[in-house]
């Protein structure tokens, strides 16, 4: 509805995202959406938004921008040392800006992705039910692309509701990440390797983006006679595919079908941990069953809605 921010420098990969596009997968359009729903949800809550409002996702380094109107923002996720008019400010708090204020952010000192929410939410046209950017399809979000210097972002008008001023806690992102994963859907092809897979400490490689994370440090062998590839079938974020070379790839937000077998699937309540994984981090999978995964999801949904003092 009104101009809110002008980007001075965007950082290496800054996009507009919401919680994702769930109803177009059958058209070949992947979910997209924030890589870390924990940080994005609380960023929105700190400015009084619905958790589904569009935010900025900034990868490895943050953006610098000028406020064009009085607004509330919140920066969460990876620690990127934000400064307001040259003075350091906290993350995970609600931050009022006046027109002309300049916010600058640096590289990620802990974690990988930071989120910026603005009161009302960023105003981009919804596409197939979501404001998320789908980089591979060059559509959705802000002109289907990463932000660039000079871009002006608009925000939606929203009533001023009571909102928490700060989060009473915030996460520290460890360099050894443990995620819970359910065997399958193709674990019978990896009968001999399954146990080893769950005890291997992998390394996040440099090939790591919104499509997926390739892991180094431990090849996963399929059983003799098991196929290297299969007819393309639907995939979900969290599927751990084992391509021909045996180096696992965790699929994330920008793929709808795949032709490799998946040994395990990271549960959705742990996907945010992968959103904060950066090249060089260690990563291990811990085995859970479907029932436990669903119990953890229930707890996760409750956690994201934790009542906060206003």
């Amino acid at each position, binding site marked *: 509805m009104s101009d809110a921010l002008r980007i001075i420098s965007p950082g290496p990969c800054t996009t507009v995202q919401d919680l994702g596009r*769930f*109803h*177009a*997968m*059958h*058209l*070949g*359009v992947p979910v997209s959406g924030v890589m870390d729903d924990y940080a994005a949800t609380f960023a929105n809550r700190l400015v009084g938004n619905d958790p589904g409002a569009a935010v900025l996702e900034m990868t490895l380094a943050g953006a610098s921008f000028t406020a064009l109107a009085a607004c509330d923002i919140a920066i969460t996720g990876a620690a990127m040392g934000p400064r307001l008019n040259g003075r350091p400010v906290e993350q995970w708090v609600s931050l009022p800006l006046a027109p002309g204020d300049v916010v600058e952010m640096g590289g990620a000192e802990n974690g990988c992705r930071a989120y910026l929410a603005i009161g009302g939410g960023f105003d981009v046209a919804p*596409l*197939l039910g979501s404001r998320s950017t789908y980089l*591979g*399809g*060059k*559509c*959705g979000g802000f002109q289907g692309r990463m932000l660039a210097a000079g871009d002006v972002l608009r925000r939606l008008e929203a009533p001023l509701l009571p909102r928490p001023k700060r989060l009473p806690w915030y996460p520290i992102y460890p360099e050894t990440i443990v995620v819970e994963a*359910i065997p*399958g*859907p193709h674990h019978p092809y990896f009968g001999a390797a399954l146990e080893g897979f769950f005890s291997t400490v992998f390394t996040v490689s440099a090939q790591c983006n919104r499509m997926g994370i390739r892991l180094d440090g431990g090849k996963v062998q399929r059983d003799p006679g098991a196929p290297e590839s299969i*007819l*393309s*079938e*639907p*995939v*979900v974020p*969290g*599927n751990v595919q084992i391509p021909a070379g045996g180096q696992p790839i965790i699929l994330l937000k920008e793929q*709808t*079908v795949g032709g490799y077998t*998946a040994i395990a*699937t*990271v*549960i*959705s309540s742990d996907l945010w941990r992968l959103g904060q994984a950066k090249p060089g981090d260690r990563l291990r999978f811990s085995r859970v069953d*479907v*029932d436990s*995964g*669903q119990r*953890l*999801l*229930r707890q996760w*949904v409750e956690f994201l809605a934790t009542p906060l003092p206003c």
Partner: protein
Amino acid sequence: MATEFIASGERCLLAVYGRGIDEQVNERVHRMAALLRRHGNPAIEAVVGSYCTLAVHYNPLRSGFAEVAALLTDLEKELVTTTAAPARTVDIPVCYGGAFGPDLDFVASHCRMSEEQVIACHSKPAYRIYTIGFAPGFCYLGGLDEGLHTPRLESPRQKVAAGSVGIAGNQTGVYPLDSPGGWRLIGRTPLRLFAPERQQPLLYEAGDLIRFRPISESEYLTLAEEERR
């Protein structure tokens, strides 16, 4: 074979209806997808069909894995008691050869045909859309004539224009968006296959048949002009 139900994480169930590239299995997958969408169960969030597998995304806060599997088993009975509607055939106009199909001559000489024979052979069958994926609106089609099988380019092109029709090995298909690609290009359609702002973003759905209709360059230009409006 009996339907197999497999978990792909804690909120997606894969129902496997058979093996391989099989028209009947694929028909079952897409009929089940349609039945599920029509059923409108509030626990079901999205349904995606592929060659032999149906992915059912569900909300575990509403239904467990076993309940979703039971719902599918129940609905499957309807497949037997109702007959399938005949598959819809979608007509895709294609201008073959020239600047739109720079590899038509290569395909013709590789297949020991004239260019006209390649066009006639390629535009004859109704190709089944087994699944859509890889890119928005990209169809995995079955039924390319064996006489037209041609290997991919040795090194892919940096940019293939949206609408380009190509052959790669035993597959044929259309690029819905500008993208890099290694398929042998034999023609181009003026239609915008993926238009997310349209009421129907795609002109077809999985389970439909596609037939390529040869058109002249002037028809191409007329249709392309209409698409822009």
